[in-house]
């Protein structure tokens, strides 16, 4: 708000220059767009002349003139201008991140790679700007700045001074911009096509004359007619190139527009001269035609780019704008933006759920494929969480809204995908650098071509050098990387694979080792009780399975341990009554010890031990209970029958974890005694084995990380075909494992569930979080797999490889293209018209190859989950 007031104040005090009139001469300056800070205030000028004069007057210390002058020219409060410039620093497209703020803008006027370079350098140099990234394909600018040091207005003004217009990015703004560009291109193209038709018609006569002779008068007429048509046509149609070239030159960077503009203008000037002079050949038809063809190429390129963009932004396809709000018992259709957290909305069958929330009434199956890529619908009932932009298939639901706007899962995923596309890979920075040397090199080659051929034939010299100017195409070079990344990340996102950027792709395909965290990645991450084995030796206590679970659950009910949770869950399925218990003592690495404050039923009912002797237990107020591994039993002197011991060993060898339940003295004569073994396991996901096989085929080493004991871990590993296991790893040690592997020179991909292995994911070259779109995972991982199918790990790596090789192919294609055609053009084998056909083709090939690479990467076409 401060900022707003300040801008308003500045303009309001600037009463010398009425709205949109030149500050110096007072003439109308509407639409000229020359706005500069002179005398510490932003002022409008009608032309650069006036601007310079004003600067000069201030520098010469003569500014008193303006003060005097203003007395006779009372100012108008420039309300409209003030409105135009106000940028509310609290607008909702500006997001706060930590101390800084970030926003995504759409930038108008980006022509080529040099523009990107220019914007990133100049805006990046503004004090307070932390990050600035521009995407060539989508014309999106991501900016992060510190609000203490600068404001978005300063940044937008800076962009304006470079000749670019910036506006908040919305899908609508993007579409409008694309549409505008498209129609502008189309009109210019149509005009050029008309010019081409007309001049070719005239040229026909001229060419015929070249062979069979033509009367001078007639020839003159044809040439003049061509000139009259071609000059306005070429000037109009090539204006986008000329403008682009000019803006580039002004900022001392040579853009791709320059050679094209030069080619068009030189041809035009030469032909006009030939017409006036009445000698030499005219090339009006060529000029029109190549302008037409290059425009056509750009048009196709824009269309292809739009398609690539559409592939990447299918996340938008489902966005819903309205929802049914239940307020005061009435249904009301409202815009989603007006809904607040805590509101109740109703979602009819077949409708898209608008926002994240909890189901408070009804049950349904829900298709979450747009979020997770998982094609199987999920059943959800009251209390279940549902996410915005997913489809409610068959039931009517009432939902209490939990998250709105930018906080929803969908929004954060979308933002991540978009940010990823703005990132820049090392390889692209190299390509950008090469491209920046490209244009000057081409100008030199063209000049050389001209000088060389002018010794022989001036007319040929012009034609050949123009061909060189037109045929060269750093566009392909500049497009190679962003296009492949855009298509690749987009295609991956469709499958629920979120890749955080170009750098990640690059690292992922250099990987040598894949570290897989067992729990939650290769397994389902949910411990379940598999079996309860009662001691059947002759002197065992008379317990049954239900009782074992009930006693164990009574102790474990307050436990956070996954095994404890599994036991409690299982017990609750059978009977909900638990015994009263005291606080327990957890012994890390072993288990727990606690006391029951009630006499268990089996003892109370039977009242006798296995041998038929009645044991007095009525006086027992506390019964010690041990739940844990063999070590716990041993250290507490618990008697374990050989039957139970064998059972436990056998489970271990099958990769199944187990715990003993032992009951302390008081229930038995003297010693504590193990009464049962409870086996728990975390089922291995069905697809884990095929993932390991796949990674092997890709030439990657796999290592499994597990907190289990060596035996269990190795059993799981051998079943999956993993050769190396690092077992008994505590969560906090995972990071160390990653670091050690990296120190050994490996490029490590760490795959985890993103919940307790954040540091390890961050320490790896590539951290991959499986099966969750939580903000935690999104923050710590480089690749997020929204789907929990382990095969997506392989999929993600395959896409990275395929996109990266697509990038390399693209760079080679454009290099080869330029190396082949530039010499040909310089030698005079390529006429400008052919050059104009070949040049856009090279760009189209690069775009096509990118889309192909992205599609190839997705080998698992239909996931069976």
């Amino acid at each position, binding site marked *: 708000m401060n900022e707003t007031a300040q801008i308003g104040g500045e303009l309001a005090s600037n009463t010398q220059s009425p709205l949109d009139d030149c500050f*110096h*001469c*007072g*003439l109308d300056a*509407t*639409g*000229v*767009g*020359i706005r500069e800070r002179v005398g510490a205030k932003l002022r409008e000028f*009608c*032309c*650069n*002349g*006036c*601007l*310079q*004069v004003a*600067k*000069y*007057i*201030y*520098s*010469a*210390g*003569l500014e*008193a*003139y*303006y003060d*005097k*002058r203003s007395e006779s020219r009372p100012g108008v409060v420039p309300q409209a201008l003030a409105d135009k410039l106000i940028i509310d620093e609290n607008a909702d497209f500006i997001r706060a991140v930590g101390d800084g703020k970030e926003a995504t803008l759409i930038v108008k006027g980006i022509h080529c790679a040099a523009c990107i370079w220019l914007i990133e350098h100049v805006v990046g140099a503004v004090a307070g700007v932390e990050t600035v990234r521009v995407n060539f394909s989508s014309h999106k600018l991501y900016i992060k700045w510190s609000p203490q040091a600068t404001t978005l207005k300063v940044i937008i003004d800076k962009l304006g001074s470079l*000749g670019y217009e910036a506006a908040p990015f919305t899908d609508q703004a993007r579409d409008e911009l694309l549409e505008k560009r498209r129609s502008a291109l189309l009109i210019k193209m149509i005009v050029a096509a008309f010019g081409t038709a007309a001049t070719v018609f005239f040229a026909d006569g001229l060419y015929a004359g070249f062979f069979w002779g033509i009367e001078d008068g007639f020839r003159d007429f044809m040439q003049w007619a061509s000139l009259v048509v071609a000059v306005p046509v070429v000037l109009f149609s090539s204006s986008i190139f000329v*403008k682009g070239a*000019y*803006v580039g030159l*002004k900022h001392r960077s040579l853009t791709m527009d320059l050679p094209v503009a030069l080619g068009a203008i030189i041809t035009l*000037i030469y032909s*006009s*001269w030939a017409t*006036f*002079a*009445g000698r030499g050949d005219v090339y009006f038809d060529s000029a029109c035609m190549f302008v037409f063809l290059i425009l056509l190429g750009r048009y196709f390129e824009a269309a292809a780019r739009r398609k690539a963009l559409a592939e990447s932004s299918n996340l938008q396809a489902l966005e819903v704008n309205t929802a049914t709000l239940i307020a005061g018992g009435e249904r009301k259709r409202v815009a989603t933006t007006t809904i607040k957290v805590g509101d109740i909305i109703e979602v009819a069958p077949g409708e898209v759920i608008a926002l994240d929330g909890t189901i408070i009434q009804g049950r349904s199956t829900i298709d979450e494929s747009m979020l997770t890529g998982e094609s199987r619908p999920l059943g959800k009932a009251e209390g279940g969480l549902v996410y915005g932009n997913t489809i409610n298939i068959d039931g009517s639901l009432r939902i209490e809204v939990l998250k709105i706007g930018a906080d929803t899962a969908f929004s954060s995923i979308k933002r991540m995908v978009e940010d990823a596309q703005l990132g820049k890979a090392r390889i692209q920075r190299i390509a950008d650098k090469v491209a920046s040397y490209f244009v000057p090199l081409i100008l030199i080659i063209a000049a050389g071509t001209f000088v060389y051929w*002018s010794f022989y034939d*001036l007319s040929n010299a012009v034609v050949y050098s123009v061909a060189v100017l037109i045929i060269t195409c750093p566009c392909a070079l500049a497009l190679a990387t962003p296009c492949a990344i855009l298509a690749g990340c987009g295609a991956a996102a469709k499958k629920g694979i979120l890749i955080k950027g170009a750098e990640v792709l690059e690292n992922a395909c250099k990987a040598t080792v894949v570290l897989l965290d067992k729990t939650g990645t290769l397994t389902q991450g949910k411990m379940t009780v598999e079996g309860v084995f009662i001691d059947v030796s002759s002197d065992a206590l008379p317990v049954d399975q239900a009782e074992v679970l009930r006693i164990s659950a009574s102790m474990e009910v307050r436990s956070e341990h996954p095994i404890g949770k599994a036991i409690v869950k299982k017990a609750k399925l059978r009977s909900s009554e638990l015994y009263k218990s005291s606080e327990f003592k957890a012994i890390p690495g072993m288990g727990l010890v606690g006391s029951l404050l009630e006499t268990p039923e089996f003892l109370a009912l039977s009242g006798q031990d296995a041998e038929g002797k009645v044991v007095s237990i009525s006086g027992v107020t506390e019964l010690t209970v041990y739940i844990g591994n063999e070590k716990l039993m041993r250290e507490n002197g618990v008697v374990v029958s050989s039957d139970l011991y064998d059972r436990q060993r056998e489970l271990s060898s099958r990769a199944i974890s187990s715990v003993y339940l032992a009951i302390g003295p008081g229930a038995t004569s003297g010693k504590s005694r193990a009464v049962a073994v409870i086996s728990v396991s975390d089922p291995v996901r069905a697809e884990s084995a095929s993932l390991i096989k796949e990674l092997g085929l890709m030439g990657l080493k796999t290592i499994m990380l597990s907190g289990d004991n060596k035996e269990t871990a190795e059993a799981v590993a051998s079943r999956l075909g993993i050769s190396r296991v690092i077992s008994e790893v505590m969560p906090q040690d995972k990071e160390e494992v990653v670091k050690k592997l990296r120190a050994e020179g490996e490029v490590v991909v760490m795959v985890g569930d993103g919940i307790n292995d954040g540091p390890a994911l961050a320490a790896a070259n590539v951290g991959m979080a499986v099966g969750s779109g939580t903000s935690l995972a999104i923050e710590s991982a480089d690749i997020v797999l929204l789907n929990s199918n382990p095969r997506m790990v392989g999929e993600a790596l395959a896409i990275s490889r395929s996109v990266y090789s697509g990038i390399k192919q693209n760079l080679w294609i454009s290099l080869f293209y330029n190396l082949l055609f530039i010499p040909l053009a310089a030698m005079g084998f390529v006429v400008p018209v052919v050059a104009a056909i070949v040049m856009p083709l090279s760009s189209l090939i690069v775009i096509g190859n990118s889309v192909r690479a992205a599609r190839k990467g997705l080998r698992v076409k239909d996931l069976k989950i």
Partner: protein
Amino acid sequence: MGDLIAVFFIGVLGVVHCAAMCGGLMTACAMRFGGKGIKPTIGFSFIYNLARISTYAAFGLLMGVLGKALIKIGLLTEFQTMMPFIAGAVMVLIGIDLLGLMPKGAKKYTSRLFPAHLLGRVSRAGGNRKYLSAAIMGLVNGLIPCGMVYAVGAKAAATGEPLSAVLIMAAFGLGTFLPLVFGVALAKGLAGVKTAGFTYVTSLIIIVLGVKTMYMSFMGM
């Protein structure tokens, strides 16, 4: 001779167009050094404008030399007629611009070569010496980017003769002389007057002269 008269009138009529700009500048200078009353102001203006025209003449000399050099180079490549041809085209474009037919945004892209701050400091060199300051500031005024000066400069270059080029620029400068000497008064007097009519005539003269230059370039062959 016909051309000289034409550029003279470009000057006379053109001043009306740019009285607001150069007139403003001159007024700014005169306010500081001109003193009160008509006489001292006229004296200041006289020196100031004489200096300004000197700059034009010097610019003409430069253009003439440049034109001659280009034509000499052009002879080697059969391009000798290109230079006047391009110069004529530049004049036509400037004429169209003066008519206001160029897209408005295009003005943004015209020359920014004028080193305003540097010259601003230079012009303080005269200190409080009235006539010296007038001379320095007049010389600087001659350098201010101006479409008309460039149009006539192109014409001067097209002659390909340094001497003719100086004459052309001087004739133009003389055309602007008298009106600008009274520029202060003129600027005020014109405040409410429609200047469009004058501008059209100026622009048309420039365009006609440009086309003629283009055409004549081939007649000379």
